[in-house]
């Protein structure tokens, strides 16, 4: 193995993040407290800019470090999307912890390190890198969940997430070791060249890895932790957790499955579809019975996972739709969680009843929340409609008619609970006047809300640029074409 300066240049965006993370820790030590959010934002932006394709033709994936890691093309897009997810969340973090009365300076370093983990996970071409990325991401997420030390629910969330997450990682690691044992390699691309059809261990190996991922994306039947963890996690971070980490896991799962199996194994395919269908139905029905907004969004995220899994089972078109979906979902869900965080000082503020009449007390607040909720419900012309439409459309084209119809039906039923929140915001009088001045009107989260709401609307009306960008990354003959795309 040789060190290649070209590889280092290719991974500059990631190195940038690493430097940012270290700088953040150092600044913390030197008591440069007020600089932290700015530094984090600057570092993420710089990394994002570095990852931007230099010329329009820059669409091919470049494997680096002996084919262990991917850069360029689709990998760059994923990098950008994940940095954006962190940047969006950054708008809400400082204000939230200030109001919660906690000074948690380490969060910025943790946030940046978790993004590094996500990028490694999503852009890996090697089981070892996948695992390191996954663990880097997960450990940061466990810490995030437990960050509000004074709240019991936060401690509980951290511990629960950690214990169950470790349990799931155990399966993942077991699967990986089996796969290595069968194929003698840890590289995805080399695995696809080995003929494994006769091997009895192959299917269980892939299945165990799949289970590890299904846990991370909270798909049925590995979804149980989701509501408890999201409820306990500091709200803006729950939004980040629900979006960026899932985006990374979905892309990693898609790349893994398609690269190791150019033709998706039939049983794995049906497990994906089955999990997708049950997640959609289960998530939507149970979400309808929730009275806590964070739990409601947690169950809704199980349902959304179902839609995305359906896309993953629908071939290349489905995978394009999945990436688009994850991007849109990041925008609208970070926005929704951000708003909940803005209206929260104590834990009970996330109860739907605390939101009664808020749309009339604070008009722009209500409008923004309605935009995110309508978008999550999939109502045109908001972005959530087009992304959902594309996923179902891909499923229909892959002849998954029944699953697609169940999905459309589930999402129609699902609209009910999003609308119920709007009913509370506009059509219900608040019974108890809260003593504290909520929601927060601090500058940074307000700007964040406007940016995200504007993006939700804009990407609903003009989805083409982003979608065709993703689509163009799959064109031509490169790694993706070899992987069955």
């Amino acid at each position: 193995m040789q060190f290649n300066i070209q590889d280092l240049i290719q991974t500059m965006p990631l190195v940038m993040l690493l430097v940012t993370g270290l700088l953040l820790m150092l600044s913390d030590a030197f008591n440069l407290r007020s600089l932290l959010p700015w530094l984090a934002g600057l570092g993420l932006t710089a990394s994002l800019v570095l990852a931007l394709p230099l010329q329009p033709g820059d669409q091919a994936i470049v494997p680096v470090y002996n084919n262990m890691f991917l850069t360029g093309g689709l990998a760059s897009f994923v990098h950008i999307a994940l940095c954006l997810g962190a940047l969006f969340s950054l708008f809400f973090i400082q204000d939230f912890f200030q109001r919660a009365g906690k000074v948690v300076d380490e969060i910025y370093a943790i946030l940046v390190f978790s993004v590094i983990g996500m990028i490694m996970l999503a852009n890996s071409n090697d089981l070892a890198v996948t695992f390191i990325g996954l663990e880097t991401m997960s450990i940061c997420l466990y810490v995030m969940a437990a960050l509000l030390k004074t709240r019991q629910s936060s401690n509980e969330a951290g511990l629960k997430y950690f214990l169950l997450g470790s349990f799931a990682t155990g399966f993942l690691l077991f699967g990986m070791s089996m796969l290595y044992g069968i194929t003698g390699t840890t590289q995805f691309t080399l695995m696809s060249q080995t003929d494994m059809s006769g091997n009895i261990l192959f299917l269980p190996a892939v299945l165990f890895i799949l289970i590890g991922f299904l846990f991370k994306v909270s798909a049925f039947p590995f979804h149980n932790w989701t509501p408890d963890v999201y409820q306990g996690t500091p709200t803006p971070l729950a939004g980040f957790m629900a979006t960026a980490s899932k985006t990374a896991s979905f892309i990693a799962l898609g790349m893994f499955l398609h690269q190791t199996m150019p033709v998706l194994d039939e049983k794995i395919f049906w497990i994906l579809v089955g999990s997708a269908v049950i997640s959609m139905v289960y998530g939507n029905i149970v979400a309808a019975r929730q009275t806590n907004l964070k739990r409601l969004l947690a169950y809704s995220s199980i349902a959304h996972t179902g839609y995305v899994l359906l896309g993953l089972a629908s071939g290349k078109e489905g995978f394009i739709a999945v990436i688009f979906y994850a991007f849109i979902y990041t925008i609208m869900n970070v926005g929704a969680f951000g708003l909940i965080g803005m209206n929260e000082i104590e834990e009970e503020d996330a109860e739907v009843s605390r939101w009664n009449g808020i749309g009339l007390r604070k008009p722009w607040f209500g409008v923004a929340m309605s935009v995110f909720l309508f978008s999550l419900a999939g109502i045109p012309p908001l972005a959530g409609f087009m992304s959902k439409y594309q996923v179902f459309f891909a499923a229909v084209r892959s002849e998954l008619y029944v699953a697609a119809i169940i999905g459309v039906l589930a999402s129609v039923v699902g609209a009910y609970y999003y609308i119920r929140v709007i009913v509370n915001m506009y059509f219900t009088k608040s019974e108890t006047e809260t003593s504290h001045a909520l929601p927060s009107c601090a500058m940074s989260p307000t700007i964040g809300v406007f940016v995200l709401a504007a993006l939700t609307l804009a990407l609903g009306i003009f989805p083409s640029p982003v979608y065709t960008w993703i689509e163009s990354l799959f064109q031509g003959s490169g790694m993706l074409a070899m992987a069955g795309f």
Partner: protein
Amino acid sequence: MEALLPLIILSPFIGAAIIGIWGLFSSSFRHQEKLIGTIATLAVVLPFVLVLNTFLSYEHGKPVSFHLFSWMATKNFSVDFSYVLDEASLLMGLIVTGIGSLIHIYSIAYMHHDKGFYRYFLYLNLFIFSMNNLILGDNLLVLFLGWEGVGACSYFLIGYWFEDMAKAMAAQKAFVANRIGDFALLVAMFIIFTSTGSLKFSEISLSGDVAFWVALLVFIAATGKSAQIPLYVWLPDAMAGPTPVSALIHAATMVTSGIYLIARMSEVFLQVPGVMILVAVIGGLTAILAALIAIAQNDIKKVLAYSTVSQLGFMFMALGAGAFSTAIFHVMTHAFFKACLFLGSGSVIHAMEHMHLVDDPQDIRTMGKLGKYMPSTSKTFWISTLAIAGIFPLSGFFSKDEILGKLFAAGHEHVMYYAVWAVGMITAVLTAFYMTRVTFLTFNGKKRFPEEGHPHESSPLMTIPLWILAGLAIVGGFLGLPAVVGHGHYNWISEHWLSISKAPIIVNRILHADLTTEWILIGISFCVAIGGVYFAYSLYSKYDLQADLKVKSFFGSMYRVMENKFFIDEFYNAAIIRPFVWLGNYAIMPFDKKFIDGLVNGSGYLVYSAGSVFRQLQSGLVQKYALLMFIGVVVLLGYAIFG
């Protein structure tokens, strides 16, 4: 002029944006009623002028289209924000923007001093924007955008006066009922795109099984939006919204979009006679059911709401018979007289409210003799009542007679149509009866509100739109003279404007009856309407409110059923809503808890000893979650290896 056409779509949107953004950030703007009203009204009048201009200079068979930008363009799927003004969409466009303008003007006076004045006009402008997308879009996805948009606006306007929970629930009911229809439309769109590769109306051509499923799904979608059995229940509840909204959205425009959609897809429907019969039968059943309920209601808006459901049923009968352009004709005449009736009822409610003497300003039992105080409202209301009852030569006579005539002629195709025709005839009698009843009890007869009350006629901003609509309700029918006059050459709508030879947008089934039959049918229609009105008038002028007792004894125990709306709401509650709640409460929610608890208790030892580690946890659910995960792993592994 052509360059200005995009403004038909954009102008209401810009109006909404100005009012919305300005109102959101400036609280002083919110009280400038004149400014808000003017902006909102101009934003709708402008599209009306543009549509009217296109209509007047229109050349047959040469649709005018315009394109805003591409919505989605991928390799396999592309759809544009492009619009087409053809024979069908121009006609609907005129109705929507024309009546929309009148109702905007009326609302300025009606909503005077309302707290949420700016919100109201914001929704109203957004509604017109969505409705224009719905009718002018040249493909199904833009139509769907409008379809969802009008649903959302209607939802916000129904719950507009949110003070009491019942209204919020009504809004939610409307939304859910509409979503069921939306589901059907989405699935239909998927099927259409996979089989034809396009969502453009002009490129849709289906056959065989595909046509059957698409037709069925589109029909289900239409039953949601256009309030037919089994999804009609939301419309009567939707009357919780402000009355001008009921006139615009829940009578003249939005509720007819299902009919418009089916008419646009007439070619698909004509290939599946089975679905056509279903459409006619459902229309007939809805018409008579709603008419029966309307007889026993005492809330002026409820009567009008059920009457709308019933008239929509007539339109579906026409669609089912294959007389698509006749259905559009009835959409138009109905828009005139029903908008007038609703606005009239708004004027009445306004007057009753301002007396501050009665508990319920919508109850006709506390009205009576209002005609003396409100001459304009009374006269226009009576004109529209006679029109909807089908009195010659008002507009309702022509459209309703044409529907019944076409149904009778379709009897050659299938006997079922004769039955539907008979149901239509009975419904026509009932319509004449209950409309006369409600109008009489409101404006004539004895004065039933307290003596000291002096209701006032509404302001000219409200009465002028009433007179315009009443005028249209009188003359609108002449656009569709019956076939007996000059062999149909003077039926402008069916034979000229929407005729197949000139514009193949809407294709009708060819239905002809011989001249004698036509004359007989016209004669029956004529007598039925006159008879119904005369009977109700004489009954109620003789006994006043007591006449209801006669009606009651005539219907016997049926009356109680009619009064309670055939217990349909109760039935849905028991058959659908409660099981759904039950499923959530008792089957799925405790699934995690009970099921896992049982497992834990059963296989206890291992998990419990591990439990001591987690004692600090409040609920100790971790072990259970882990166990469920483990079961999941075992099941999946079992499937992978043995399945």
